[in-house]
């Protein structure tokens, strides 16, 4: 696979959150505000890139039978490092996210990419994959956070956008709102895909028709009997 394809598949086609529905726990729990969401996304992105890289480096040295515990150990060490770094430099965000930072260890996306990609590819390709998947996760969780914060609090990134007349919809910052919004986002994404597919079909049809016209000079192609 080309590196550009590796990078972009995590953004849309194999988006870990809205397509593969992986790592739902932080997505639903932390997306109450855009700030929390992007903090969680970037933390996961950092862990994902680093874990993909290290696992791709040592993949040949680990016996297949013990690879999962070995991967988890490496991921846990990286998460601990990220946890400490956030506590040092982003203390408030670290306090808000709380338990969900250590829980990155058990995020399905990370072990999924380790098993599905890093264990079979080169270190550089694994970094690119981690970057693409991590960005896809960050983008989707931040979109979710923006939508929920806007409806549930009237603001985005803490900046009030809707006037005083707007009565915030509390449900959106509560757990049911997360499920509703996630479903709506996933459906929107699928709808866009369907529209794109339909357009691609029309374009291909038109191209075929033009090629036929060129070949036959615009005359209808004589069909053998029985093929009308």
């Amino acid at each position, binding site marked *: 696979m080309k590196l550009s394809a590796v990078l972009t598949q995590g953004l849309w086609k194999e988006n870990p959150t809205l397509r593969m529905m992986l790592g739902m726990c932080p997505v639903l729990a932390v997306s109450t505000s855009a700030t929390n969401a992007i903090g969680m996304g970037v933390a996961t992105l950092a862990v994902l890139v680093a874990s993909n890289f290290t696992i791709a480096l040592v993949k040949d040295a680990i016996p297949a039978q013990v690879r999962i515990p070995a991967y988890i150990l490496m991921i846990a060490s990286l998460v601990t490092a990220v946890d400490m770094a956030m506590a040092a430099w982003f203390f408030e965000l670290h306090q808000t996210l709380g338990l969900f930072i250590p829980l990155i260890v058990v995020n399905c996306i990370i072990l999924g990419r380790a098993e599905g990609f890093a264990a079979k590819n080169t270190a550089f390709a694994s970094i690119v994959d981690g970057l693409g998947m991590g960005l896809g996760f960050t983008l989707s969780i931040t979109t979710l956070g923006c939508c929920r914060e806007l409806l549930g609090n009237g603001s985005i990134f803490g900046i009030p956008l809707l006037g005083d007349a707007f009565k915030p919809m509390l449900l959106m910052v509560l757990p*049911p709102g997360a499920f509703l919004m996630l479903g709506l986002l996933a459906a929107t994404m699928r709808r866009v895909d369907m529209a794109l597919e339909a357009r691609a079909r029309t374009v291909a049809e038109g191209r075929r028709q033009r090629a036929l016209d060129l070949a036959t000079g615009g005359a209808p192609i004589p069909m053998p009997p029985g093929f009308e």
Partner: protein
Amino acid sequence: MADESTPTPPPEPPTAGAPTPPVGAQQAAPPATGDGAPPAAAERPGAKKRAAKEGAAAADTEKEEKKKKKGPPKKELILVASSSPHVVSDESIPRIMYTVCLALAPAILVAVYCFGLQAVKVLALTSAACLVTEAGLQRLMGRRLTVTDGSALVTGLLLAMTLPPSAPWWICLLGGALAIGVGKQLFGGLAHNPFNPALIARVILLISWPVELTTWMKPGQGFVNLGVDVVTAASPLGLMKEELIQKGSIQVVSQFPLRDGLLGLNQIGSLGETSVIALLLGGLFLLYRGYITWHIPVSYIATVGAVAALFWGIDPGHFAPPLYHLVTGGLFLGALYMATDMVTCPVTNRGMLIFGMGCGILTYFIRTFGAYPEGVSFAIVIMNGAVPLIERWVRPRTYGHNLSAA
């Protein structure tokens, strides 16, 4: 079966092609052989009716028979293995839905009498929002428009009955849109929704805007001022909860006039929390028409009464008497019109009894120990979610199977 008032369109006349008798067992009636024609004609109410309408019954049937005998046997015998139902009744979705609307009429009249134009406003806005959302979403998804079947109207009316009369216009519109959009069409439309759409909308509204949803106006002032300066008051259940939290005992209950709850003309609450008698009237009508059975309302209301009596017996100073629980709040509205929703309640009688009991217990506990003063909507929605489990539990024995367990 050959009923004159059959609303279903008459089936295709037999000459038009494949005969599709509604009863699967009649497939043996062979149009090609000819000798089976008289019984076949007698069994086809549609053809008969058509003929009678045209006023040439005899001639028409003769012609048909001739055609059957002479006609080239191109499609001689087509066996239609049609699935059930084989018996068609004259019930239809619009008929059921508009009957429910009619059954709601007494309670709606009481609500309009009590709250005047405010009630009319809430009813009109929610119903309009439901109808528009239904039509708009069906159009958007390229589905058949079924907005005239009345189901969206029932949802709108029921939702309006659960809202306070002083609800602002945007609550009404948003509630209608949520009921149909989130409660119904997201799941695939009528009969695919696991939860009662009106109650889903009410729960979303109540959680999102608790202030607007628990501000009640006093009855009897709606005809004069359709505006903001209405006199507000606390609902009986809200008062009870407040006293419980603040003083730890209840005095308001003993001062509550029971007659108010039954007649409902002076009751403070949602549009549909007014008159128990009016609600009961509509409920009995539905029961008479056979659209609901007694199981859910009786088990629901009796359970609330029994649990309330139990707690009241333990400590009358702390818990309200059972009658207070029965005539206040939306218990009768929920038990008669919402818990009995055909789509979202269990299908077996035993299942319905369990469903009603679950609703009753949850309602009492949410009212007494929960964070919200009224628990009917939460209770029914939670039990809607439990319906698949209940149906699994009380699944009837299949005829001829598992005889030892019977």
